[in-house]
């Protein structure tokens, strides 16, 4: 069984014990252990169950590529499913539970699936769609939903916090192994600003495990000296526990820093997502070892050969007592040698190649290890753990020659360079026949804004699997990146690496070569999603020729490990099944992130009170103190109504409306957009952007205006005030200020750059306070200051002066139909002005009203609301606003579009008013009118829908506006609105102006 060895372990601190639990059992590990190494040290080799067949799963790898050993970590606000034990550092108090089993890890009912794999073939999911029709909904979907996902979703809010960080560097190096460090040395010497990031807690990569001599120094000495040298220079920064997770356009890279996953606390953020802009990115991301597809290769105890020696060397942990190595290359012999030297048993090395006589096989033989060439594994024996291997010839069909007892199988099918980051942004790959792998093609890099490549690969990630060549490649990559980033790199001597030479590998995709179905159906490709050799062959047989289709059909590579171990093997099998060369089949697309990153890190700080900005008016705190019931209006929060004790919201709205119509009320209209437009061509410009004529507006006057887009559709409205011959103040909707400002600037900067016009968004410079109702003038007169009489300040005009000692600009405009002044005052004095109005208005029964009262009153007047009566497909003419569309102007935005036949049609949906048969029935918002008969889908023929609907306290009647097909010709018609099961509301089409059609009340 697996256990802690008495010696070894370069990254663990044997003095410091750390205790943690796995499925409730208390285990001890050492500081520096990963959860995987600590579990192995405690003899825990069964750690989970697979997705589809619930097969027992053990630890297979030692890094980010691990497909099997995923667990749920923590609890409550720190619960997180599907965490890799191989990248989780243990800490005191860590709790882990295994996943995807019931009732227990040891005994799992779901494993019944394992007995009936023929019922769950490739494409099972898609086949369930086909027939019988009822089965998907009633049988398969519930089952699939029940079994989907490995771990459970967290149920509580995440108790940690997260953040972003923006960094700018000349050279970003991803990977802190030999190649990354060598590249950093070279780039650093040039003076370039270098950031090197390493996903694990330790620098050194494979060099920390596989010894070599570098410039005559043992590799650990070289590592130590190199890191010290880099630490000593200011322009190079190294950060560990930070994964290069994605490369994007223009040298943009994402770094995923796990700040305190290894030592949770409540001060620092848990993860920090770095958004790095780099002139050049060096990917020194190494390579991943490939599994071999033989029967039973998923049984706990079958591991990657490199992982087996990582556990011995880095963590002082043996994966088992007796290890059979199965390989097609020389590198795996290092595992056998390491194990033997650690005093562990290696009964045999099975090498699929016909011969193996390089330095490493020779060393293994000299250590007394039995080496069998041309041999393969026919089948692994065992279920929850390996008990032995059945040996056969690689060339045959699996005739068993002997059985070797063992508890670990260390497999190596060769290595694949980690090309993900190179490929994220379009770097191309070549098929390297000799090493049977895809490597980056340096002549086809991802291109930056200037058309040159911005990613350079270094070391093994370039496809240089031998240490000597990898070092040369990495040093040169460091120099190239620095030079291309604009620095003078210094040509120095590249460190000379002496390591054992390796003989060529032999590509092995199926073991043995002629494996029959019985073996192929037990030979795993994707361990997490349970995809086997037989599944890929079935997909090919059923016509899935594209690798992307096969991937989705079989789910190969679609698990949380994104096929780091399975993809190359899978596409080789597909190529073989299709009788096509591997490069012709190609790879699936590499997409960021390289490995899963937390959702928290993507959200960053944007949660809780920082989730989304809330814009607050200058009167906001007063409103909050006066029981405002809030409503979101784009990013603003506005009072919907001010509810008094004992009132319902509805009663409050009615009270506010009645008080405004009969006395006087105050409204905070500060959120309205205000855009200053100034210049000799300002009037000309506004004639182009508004549908109506603005150039004829007199100084001191206001005019309601409409803005359409190029397609003729109405998108914003508001009152324009002419401040001077060359200066206008354009009011926009509350949600539209930024859009309209951007719209104006876009036309000025890109189309009409010859016009002499400047704009400025002054929305927030002013608090805008509306005093509304028959007593409005009395209140203002009581405030004292400028003349607000109808003579001095007529309807649709404005003035500049002072009210109550505060600089003020009252506009005589009305959205309620009442006598109304909208008074703009400097925002910082908005609250002071509001207070004075409330005080002066007390004797007149002054009270504030909210947006709902505003809405009801404007609907009573038949005023439209952008977003209610418009939806992006409505033109002014549809809304009876044709009077505001100039027929005299030569051009304005939307004019040409409105001439198109479709927009001229008489049966377009047009605005109408509606009065319900029963005055108390309020139509539901959005209710559809039907006209009898069915369409070809068997649905009722619909002729339009309700856009605004309220009960009007002023009229004592429900009122509504609607957009109805040919509505302007339906006056007096009774329309039918089905509003639910068997219920129908009938309403008569009327003019949409319900109240004070002459406008007498506002013009006093």
């Amino acid at each position, binding site marked *: 069984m697996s256990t802690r060895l008495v010696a070894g372990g370069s990254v663990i601190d044997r003095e410091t014990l750390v205790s943690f639990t796995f499925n409730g059992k208390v285990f001890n590990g050492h500081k520096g252990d990963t959860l995987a190494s600590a579990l192995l040290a405690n003899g825990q080799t069964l750690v989970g169950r697979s997705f589809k067949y619930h097969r027992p799963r053990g630890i297979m790898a030692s890094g980010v590529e691990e497909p099997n050993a995923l667990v749920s970590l923590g609890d409550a606000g720190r619960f997180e499913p599907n965490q890799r034990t191989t990248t989780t550092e243990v800490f005191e108090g860590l709790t882990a539970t295994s996943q995807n089993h019931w009732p227990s890890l040891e005994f799992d009912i779901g494993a019944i699936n394992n007995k009936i794999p023929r019922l769950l073939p490739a494409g099972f999911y898609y086949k369930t769609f086909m027939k019988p029709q009822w089965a998907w909904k009633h049988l398969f979907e519930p089952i699939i939903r029940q079994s989907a996902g490995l771990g459970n979703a967290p149920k509580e809010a995440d108790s940690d*916090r997260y*953040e*972003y*960080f*923006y*960094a*700018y560097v000349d050279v970003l190096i991803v990977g802190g192994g030999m190649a990354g460090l060598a590249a950093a040395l070279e780039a650093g010497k040039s003076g370039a*600003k270098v950031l090197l990031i390493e996903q694990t807690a330790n620098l050194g990569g494979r060099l920390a495990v596989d010894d070599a001599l570098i410039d005559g120094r043992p590799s650990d000495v070289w590592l130590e000296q190199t890191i010290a040298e880099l630490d000593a220079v200011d322009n190079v*920064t190294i*950060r560990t526990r930070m994964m290069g997770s994605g490369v994007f356009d223009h040298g943009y890279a994402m770094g995923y*820093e796990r700040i305190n996953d290894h030592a949770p606390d409540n*001060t*620092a*953020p848990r993860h*920090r997502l770095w*958004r790095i*802009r780099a002139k050049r990115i060096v990917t020194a991301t190494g390579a991943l070892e490939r599994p071999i597809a033989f029967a039973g290769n998923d049984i706990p105890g079958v591991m990657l050969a490199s992982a087996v020696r990582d556990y011995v060397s880095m963590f002082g942990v043996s994966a088992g007592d007796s290890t059979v190595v199965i390989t097609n290359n020389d590198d795996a012999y290092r595992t056998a040698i390491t194990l033997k030297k650690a005093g562990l048993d290696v009964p045999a090395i099975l090498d699929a190649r016909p011969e193996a006589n390089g330095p490493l096989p020779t060393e293994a033989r000299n250590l007394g290890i039995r080496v069998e060439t041309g041999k393969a594994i026919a089948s692994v024996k065992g279920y929850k753990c390996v008990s032995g291997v059945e040996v056969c010839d690689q060339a045959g069909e699996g005739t068993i020659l002997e059985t070797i007892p063992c508890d670990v199988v260390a497999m190596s099918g060769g290595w694949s360079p980690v090309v993900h980051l190179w490929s994220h942004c379009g770097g191309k790959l070549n098929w390297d026949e000799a090493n049977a792998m895809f490597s980056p093609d340096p002549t086809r890099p991802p291109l930056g804004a200037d058309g040159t490549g911005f990613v350079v690969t270094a070391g093994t990630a370039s496809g240089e699997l031998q240490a000597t060549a990898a070092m040369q490649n990495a040093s040169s990559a460091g120099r190239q990146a620095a030079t291309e980033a604009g620095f003078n790199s210094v040509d120095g001597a590249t460190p000379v690496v002496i390591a054992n030479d390796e003989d060529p590998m032999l590509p092995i995709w199926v073991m043995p070569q002629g494996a029959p179905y019985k073996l192929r159906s037990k030979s795993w490709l994707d361990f997490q999603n349970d995809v086997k050799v037989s599944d890929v062959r079935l997909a090919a047989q059923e016509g899935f020729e594209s690798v992307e289709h096969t991937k989705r059909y079989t789910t190969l590579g679609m698990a949380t490990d994104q096929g780091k171990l399975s993809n190359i093997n899978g596409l080789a099998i597909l190529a073989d099944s299709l009788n096509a060369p591997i490069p012709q089949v190609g790879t699936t697309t590499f997409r960021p992130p390289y490995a899963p990153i937390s959702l928290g890190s993507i959200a*960053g*700080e*944007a949660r809780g*009170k*920082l989730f*989304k*900005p*809330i*814009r*607050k*008016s*200058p009167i906001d705190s007063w409103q909050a103190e006066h029981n405002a019931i809030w409503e979101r209006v784009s990013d*603003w929060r506005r009072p919907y109504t001010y509810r008094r004790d004992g009132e319902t919201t509805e009663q409050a709205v009615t009270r506010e409306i009645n008080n405004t119509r009969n006395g006087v009320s105050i409204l905070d209209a500060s959120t309205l957009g205000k855009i*200053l437009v*100034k*210049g*000799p061509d300002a009037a000309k410009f506004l004639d182009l952007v508004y549908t109506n004529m603005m150039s004829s507006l007199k100084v001191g006057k206001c005019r309601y205006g409409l803005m359409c887009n190029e397609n003729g559709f109405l998108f914003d409205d508001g009152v324009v005030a002419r401040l001077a011959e060359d200066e206008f103040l354009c009011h926009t909707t509350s949600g539209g200020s930024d859009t309209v400002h951007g719209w104006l600037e876009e036309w000025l900067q890109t189309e009409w750059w010859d016009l*002499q016009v*400047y*704009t*400025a968004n*002054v*929305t*927030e*410079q*002013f608090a805008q306070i509306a005093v509304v109702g028959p007593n409005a003038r009395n209140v203002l007169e009581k405030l004292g200051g400028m003349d607000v009489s109808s003579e001095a300040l007529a309807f649709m005009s404005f003035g500049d002066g002072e009210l109550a000692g*505060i600089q003020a600009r009252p506009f005589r405009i009305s959205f309620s139909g009442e006598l109304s002044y909208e008074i703009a005052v*400097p*925002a*910082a*004095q908005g*609250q*002071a*002005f509001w207070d004075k109005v409330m005080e002066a208005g007390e004797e007149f029964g002054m009270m504030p009203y909210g947006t709902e009262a505003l809405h009801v009153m404007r609907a009573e007047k038949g005023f439209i609301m952008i977003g209610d009566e418009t939806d992006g497909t409505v033109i002014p003419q549809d809304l009876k606003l044709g009077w505001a569309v100039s027929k005299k102007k030569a051009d304005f935005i939307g004019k040409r579009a409105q001439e198109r036949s479709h927009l001229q049609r008489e049966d377009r949906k047009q605005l109408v008013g509606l009065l319900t048969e029963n005055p108390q029935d309020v139509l539901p918002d959005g209710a559809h009118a039907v006209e009898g008969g069915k369409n070809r889908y068997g649905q009722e023929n619909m002729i339009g829908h309700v856009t605004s609907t309220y009960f009007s306290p002023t009229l004592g009647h429900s009122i509504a506006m609607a957009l109805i097909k040919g509505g302007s010709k339906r006056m007096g018609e009774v329309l039918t609105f089905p509003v639910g099961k068997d219920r129908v509301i009938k309403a008569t089409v009327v003019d949409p102006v319900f109240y004070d059609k002459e406008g007498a009340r506002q013009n006093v």
Partner: protein
Amino acid sequence: MSNAAFILNGAAFEGAVTVTEAGLRGMITLRGDLGSEAMEKAVKASVGVALPKQRKIKSGKRGAVAWMSPDELLLLVDYDQADMLVAKMKSILAEEHHLVVNVSDARSMFTLSGAGAREVLAKGAPVDLSHSVFGKGAIRRSRIGQIAAAFWTLDGEELEVVCFRSVGAFMYDWLSTAAAKGSLPEYL
């Protein structure tokens, strides 16, 4: 201007970095031909300094002037002086196409002081805030988190941030969160 109120009454947060609401500041948006003599004269007459170069802010005894775009400047002056200076510049620029407007009330302003101040901003602004690039007299018009903002440093250490008034309270919460003790990356 006894009625004038700023939003948080000068609230301050002491974390790894100190965040303080800076109070009312006079701000004037000035658009026009930045190469014209009248423009130079108008700026000099208001704040007493010459025009800043691209992405720079210049300060003098009477205020500061910041480059905002190829045809826009932001003048920082005493709050009470803003309207008077707007009128003054209008008359100096009367003969040429321009726009000058008091925007003091539209803004909230914060200062960040302490060694890690620039790292706090780098958590939300896609801007190179390293000492060598964002030094004395640097200004950027950008965003912080989800909010539009401009920020600058006059002395290379203390940072000043402005945003729209309506999101001032949100900005304060954002800056205080980013400035929490123990949360600086210690990279810049």
